[in-house]
């Protein structure tokens, strides 16, 4: 069983030659997908596994991105050194965002309170001008890994691929352990989870912090990819896109986060060839997937082969 599952880890190897067959622009899109995979993975831990309707994800993303950007621009640190601090800052933000949930706020009330967190951070990006560059944003220096400049898209691709595989591997271990089971137990029935000896508060805090950590890392990748950060990139539309990624991909599924990120990041780029219909096609795509695959793209994969059935959100 475990040996069988290891085959899944061959998939990233298959992706290694990808930059060779893609043009520059397509490589950029592939990199953007790699950025949004951990965005979805982290968001999904909080919403899909822990079951908390928390919309603070875009705040973690922005905090990770600005942490990397500021450390590079102000302290002159190379990008690869900023990845972990970006994750840690995202994790701290995640822990902070769990406070309403720890005080018993749930569902729509939690949604609106955590939504405010993202908007509050946007205010910080705009107002803390000497550090963040204000509304105009900040230019992020060229990223590098151990002196190896990520000056072409293909190099970013390999750096990102390593990070994404690591993030998925660690999150997979977490979700398959007693920690992951505790998350889903809390989602299903908090009272019963506590009656099993699970300190629910501690696990809610942990789930948020892990989500923030992963999304913070995604933020550092975003900073390296686009080279320019501005508050407008972390607004409500961005949040809705991130939410769509986990809904279309499949709640509580790692494979779903990957598929959702791939589809929703790549689709608008395809639709760009059909000017005037981009938004329409994007909207139709989301509606069609949710209508015919209410459990997301992950349910297709799980049906194709039990190897991919990593869903902890099953009905």
């Amino acid at each position, binding site marked *: 069983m475990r040996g069988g599952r290891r085959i899944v880890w061959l998939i990233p190897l298959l992706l290694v030659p990808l930059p060779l067959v893609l043009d520059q622009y397509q490589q950029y899109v592939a990199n953007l997908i790699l950025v949004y995979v951990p965005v979805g993975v982290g968001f999904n831990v909080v919403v899909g596994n822990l079951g908390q309707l928390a919309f603070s994800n875009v705040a973690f993303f922005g905090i990770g991105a600005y942490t990397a950007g500021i450390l590079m621009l102000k302290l002159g640190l190379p990008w690869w050194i900023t990845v972990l601090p970006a994750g840690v800052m995202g994790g701290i933000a995640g822990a902070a965002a769990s406070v309403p949930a720890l005080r018993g706020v749930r569902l729509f009330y939690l949604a609106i309170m955590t939504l405010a967190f993202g908007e509050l951070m946007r205010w910080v990006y705009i107002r803390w001008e000497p550090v963040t560059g204000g509304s105009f944003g900040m230019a992020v220096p060229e990223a590098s890994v151990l002196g190896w400049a990520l000056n072409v898209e293909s190099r970013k691709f390999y750096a990102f691929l390593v990070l994404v595989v690591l993030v998925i591997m660690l999150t997979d271990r977490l979700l398959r352990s007693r*920690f992951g089971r505790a998350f*889903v137990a809390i989602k*299903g029935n908090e009272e019963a989870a506590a*009656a*099993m000896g699970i300190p629910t508060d501690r696990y809610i805090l942990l789930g948020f912090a892990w989500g923030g950590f992963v999304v913070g890392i995604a933020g550092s990748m975003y900073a390296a990819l686009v080279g320019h950060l501005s508050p407008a990139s972390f607004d409500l539309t961005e949040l809705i896109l991130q939410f769509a990624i986990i809904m279309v991909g499949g709640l509580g599924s790692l494979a779903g986060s990957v598929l959702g990120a791939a589809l929703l990041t790549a689709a608008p780029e395809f639709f760009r060839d059909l000017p005037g219909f981009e938004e329409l096609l994007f909207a139709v795509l989301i509606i069609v997937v949710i209508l015919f695959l209410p459990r997301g793209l992950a349910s297709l994969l799980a049906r194709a082969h039990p190897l991919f059935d990593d869903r902890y959100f099953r009905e």
Partner: protein
Amino acid sequence: MAALLEISDVSVRFGGLTAVDGVSFEVSAGEVCALIGPNGAGKSTLFNAVAGNVVISSGRVLLRGAPIQHLTPHEISARGVRRTFQNGGLFAHLTALENVLVGLHTQVASGFLGLLCGAESSRRAEAAATRRARELLALMELDQVADHLASELSGGQQRMVEIVRALATDPPLLLLDEPAVGLAPPMRDRLGGIIRRLAKERGLGIVLIEHAIELVMSVSDRVIVLNYGRKVADGSPAEVRADKRVLEAYLGHA
């Protein structure tokens, strides 16, 4: 020697309403003690008070002589008081096996960092817990449904899985909140047999809330009757059956 569970002059008040009013009793190891009484008599509130889900207004709850009334539910559970829930407390998104694994949560010795690093010890702890959970399910003849989602199980199977899950850590005290609700008569008899065996063979102290009076009378060593939050009778099933106050509690004054 201190009793397994000692409830001493416990009162629970919600605003002006007194749900439990100065109730005292003890439960020893190997004893099945039923709590009965009309709806609203305070049975569930008393249960929740023992499990830590309700804060008591006065009195003490002692487990083997140590006060537990100030502890949170997960702390009380970790000290060996396990419970089932009235409306079925299984985690619907998890399989029967995973439900039992959650029951074993406190006994799976895998730390956060070791786990992330893929430490062999974490893997072994997880594998051992899974084996144990399968064994426990097999003891109740539930191995066939171990990998079914809880929501796919029949009502009786769900009740049994919930009991297996509660007992996974081998606790000394089990609280059963209306375990027979919705069970067909043969299943009820089986449940009764299991309750007796757990108490007599494994020495568990069991507190049982139940409306199915035949079940109560056949499995209990002791029956405590509550009415309006007060204890109105306490004795063997035969004694309680003969007690006039019990009839009054259920039927009103004749």
